[in-house]
């Protein structure tokens, strides 16, 4: 039994390679961009689209900072300012944070598992088109002065029919529905892929931490996203047909919106926090030359964070006059969640101490993440205390806190993951000098921007104000923050530049530039469309997740797209699943669904027409074609 080394040329495997290439060939023809179902292609599109939205959200942030740099500034009128800060929040949360995680998941979960593609390729493609259209819809709204202007969490009654005129908020609710249905679809894909496509020998307790993180996150998505989709639908119905769900004059309650939104909203921030912890674990284990300390602790911590995060939402509502005993329970839960979170950080630091850290650019970003995230975690624990929160709620203190956790945990880690995985995705290395500059400018700019915000909040500056009075002690801090924001933007811009330059003429990466041990580094950079020449078999039993494969799986019919499905817990081979090739139906269904939602924003009756069109597309999707989905298999083990 030889250890398969997937990319040795001239090893007599040319014939196998050709057959695989043909079976897994990318889409062809004039509509080939719309027909792709390969997980790496869809994943890459997700990442690029999410980064474009990140840039747009960043521009909005800079516009906000320019307006707030001086008191009573007249750079933006209040109407435009309200749209811009709403778009900033909505873009970053719905169009960047969740999709970039899902994109990295779609790309790397199959690779980390030695699989050729995700289990449901057409579903992942469909979700991309729905996400793209939802985002475009929102930005067409902004450009035509129809952008939503009630904040990214759109409290009623301000966002209701009486106080938000026109269809601005209808655009917003439909965007929410589109992007979150897309998130649900990807969550389903990732759960099935992660649980059913592990290579033989990789039992559940030896799955890579990033795959665990994506799986847990996807389960959270399954429970959280439907709530916000329902809430947005209820708001839309209130606005378009007068259902009075949030109208207290007719028996509804505006506070219901807050409960529904934050029941989604709080798990949402953990949805964008848990995958970065997984990415950090991967990066740390590579650059410390050893598996991360406390694998079991980290996985259990992530699972408990996933559960606990659903019990915290009321801490966004401490100032609404809820009963004291109830809020005390949420204080306890909100503080308790710091324990599993902190444990993961301690595991990372312990890995530095037990390994030999190489401070390359990805690890630099991860250490920046740890330093910043801890501050955000601490201010979060402060805000969990009701007597403190009722003074600082809805002030710039919260803005500082949320950016410390979101940028610290999400963005810095994604930056680190980009530097880590860019060689795999594109085949080129990013320039490390530029990377170091980018990191330090971002880190310094970030702290210059968001640390003073805590002081501003303590000095009484509320959130979401388009301007403020002079003489309150806020002016100089705001100017400093604006300068810091531009430094931060420059730092991020340098990474963008780095990626563009490296695509053009970066150093060749080779298969494993970081000398990492996980499976994605055992194939070419970028991976061929069939990802691996052979599905690896890992040694079974034992605690380590980083051992070399001890064999390969034989017996596939390589001329069709077969995926190996293994049992959930012990990853013993189960059956072969045949996935479809390139197809136009995901695009058609995605476009039709998006147009349905867009039409609904203008006239409710589009729902009926759109539903019929979507059903027609679904019929096309599932049109019988005589091909079976599974192949009967007998297994031998050696």
């Amino acid at each position: 039994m030889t250890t398969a080394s997937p990319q040795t040329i001239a090893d007599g495997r040319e014939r196998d390679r050709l057959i695989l290439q043909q079976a897994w060939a990318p889409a062809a023809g004039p509509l080939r961009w719309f027909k792709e179902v390969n997980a790496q292609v869809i994943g890459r599109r997700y990442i690029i689209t999410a980064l474009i939205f990140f840039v747009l959200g960043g521009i909005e942030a800079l516009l906000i900072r320019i307006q707030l740099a001086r008191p009573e500034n007249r750079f933006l009128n209040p109407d435009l300012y309200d749209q811009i800060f709403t778009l900033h929040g909505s873009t970053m949360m719905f169009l960047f944070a969740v999709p970039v995680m899902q994109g990295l998941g779609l790309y790397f979960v199959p690779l980390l598992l030695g699989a050729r593609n995700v289990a449901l390729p057409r579903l992942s493609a469909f979700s991309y088109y729905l996400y793209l259209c939802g985002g475009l819809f929102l930005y067409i709204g902004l450009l035509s002065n129809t952008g939503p202007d009630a904040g990214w969490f759109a409290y009623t009654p301000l966002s209701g029919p009486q106080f938000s005129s026109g269809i601005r908020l209808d655009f917003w609710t439909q965007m929410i529905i589109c992007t979150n249905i897309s998130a649900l679809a990807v969550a389903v894909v990732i759960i099935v892929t992660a649980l059913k496509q592990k290579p033989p020998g990789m039992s559940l307790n030896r799955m890579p931490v990033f795959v665990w993180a994506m799986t847990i996150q996807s389960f959270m998505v399954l429970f959280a996203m439907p709530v916000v989709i329902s809430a947005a639908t209820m708001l839309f119905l209130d606005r378009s047909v007068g259902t009075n769900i949030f109208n207290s004059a007719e028996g509804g309650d505006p506070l219901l919106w807050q409960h529904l939104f934050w029941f989604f909203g709080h798990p949402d921030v953990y949805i964008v926090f848990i995958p970065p912890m997984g990415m950090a674990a991967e990066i740390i284990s590579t650059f410390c030359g050893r598996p991360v300390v406390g694998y079991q602790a980290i996985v259990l911590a992530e699972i408990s964070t996933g559960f606990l995060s659903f019990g915290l939402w009321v801490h966004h509502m401490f100032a609404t006059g809820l009963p004291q005993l109830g809020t005390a329970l949420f204080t306890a839960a909100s503080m308790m969640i710091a324990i599993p979170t902190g444990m993961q950080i301690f595991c990372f630091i312990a890995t530095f101490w037990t390994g030999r850290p190489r401070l390359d650019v990805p690890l630099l970003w991860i250490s920046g993440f740890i330093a910043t995230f801890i501050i955000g975690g601490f201010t979060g624990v402060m805000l969990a205390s009701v007597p403190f929160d009722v003074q600082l709620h809805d002030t710039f203190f919260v803005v500082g806190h949320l950016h410390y956790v979101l940028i610290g945990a999400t963005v810095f880690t994604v930056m680190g993951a980009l530097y880590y995985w860019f060689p795999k995705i594109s085949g080129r290395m990013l320039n490390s000098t530029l990377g170091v500059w980018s990191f330090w400018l971002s880190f310094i700019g970030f702290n210059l921007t968001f640390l003073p915000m805590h002081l501003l909040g303590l000095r009484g500056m509320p959130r979401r104000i388009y301007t403020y009075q002079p003489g309150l002690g806020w002016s100089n801090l705001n100017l400093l923050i604006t300068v810091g924001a531009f430094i931060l933007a420059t730092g991020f811009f340098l990474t963008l530049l780095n990626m563009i330059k490296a695509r053009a003429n970066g150093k060749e990466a080779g298969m494993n530039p970081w000398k990492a041990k996980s499976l994605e580094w055992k194939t070419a950079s970028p991976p061929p469309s069939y990802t691996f020449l052979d599905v690896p078999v890992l040694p079974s039993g034992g605690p380590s997740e980083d051992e070399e494969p001890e064999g390969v799986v034989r017996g596939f019919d390589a001329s069709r797209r077969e995926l190996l499905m293994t049992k959930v817990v012990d990853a013993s081979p189960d059956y072969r699943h045949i996935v479809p090739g390139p197809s136009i139906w995901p695009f058609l269904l995605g476009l039709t669904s998006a147009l349905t939602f867009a039409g609904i924003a203008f006239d409710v009756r589009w729902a009926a027409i759109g539903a019929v069109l979507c059903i027609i597309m679904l019929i096309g999707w599932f049109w019988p074609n005589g091909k079976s989905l599974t192949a009967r298999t007998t297994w031998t083990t050696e």
Partner: protein
Amino acid sequence: MNCLLAFSLFAAVLPSTINQSALYPAGPQAATPYYLWNVFAWVFGILWVIVVGFMIVGLCYRGRATRISELAGEKAVATGAAFTAIILLALIVISSAIARDIATDQSQANELKVRVTGHQWWWEFQYQNGPADRFLTTANELHIPIGRPVRMEVRSGDVIHSFWVPSLSPKIDAIPDHFNEIVFQADKVGTYRGQCAEFCGLQHAHMGFLVVAETPADFQKWFNHQLDPSQDNLSAEEQQGRQVFLSSPCVVCHTVRGTSAFGGIAPDLTHLASRTTIAAALLSNTPGNLSGWITDSQRVKPGTQMPPIDIASQDMQPLLSYLDALK
């Protein structure tokens, strides 16, 4: 150019004795979060230095042989988790005890009761002590006696607002058809500025108010005077101004007790001249600002519900004199 004009309008608006800061508490309810902040800042500041210190030291050992064993690393993690749990448990207990202590359900005998209603984008205050004919309705400027608890019943007339005066009290949301309460007390004489703390539309940024804390004697004097209807002994120019006022659109929205102006949907102007600011603590109360506000409110506060009013140029000065007489 607009910017400069705007800046100069607002520049000298607030005397330096006005405070709007949680770091300068002037009463017990604001002192509690301030005390908590100090505790938190020190505890967490030290913890941050420790944890990040461990991280940096761990990162600096590059190229040498491993320093601690895997088992030691796992034990360190467990120890850290245990410490975290203990600290958090302590914080939960402290925080809940404080929260229970400051719960406002129990009413005290000598409370001053005020109902505050948030509107887009101004504050209505109604003092509700004593019989209904001693209820005082005023707007945007709240006077309170020092050393006496004030119980605010916080309501909203349209969307969700939040009543917040950082130097005196934490905030509480004003939610339509919900009746929230908050109790606070000022211990030092002074003027404190508050501001709406829940995004409520176009002019959320300019929805401020003043809380003037005075000695009980001064407060009683102010209160009794405010209860009086507007004075009737006016000069000729002021009478002409009153005529202009009563024949303008002003009366369909504003109330001036003692005249026939009974519009109830805008701030009560009976004692307008006794206030330091206008337009919800946006502009100082000067004739120039007042005339600008009346003729072109949308320029300083775009979106405000106060419409621009056409006052003939020969009527403006008498009108301003009359408004200045509403002391």
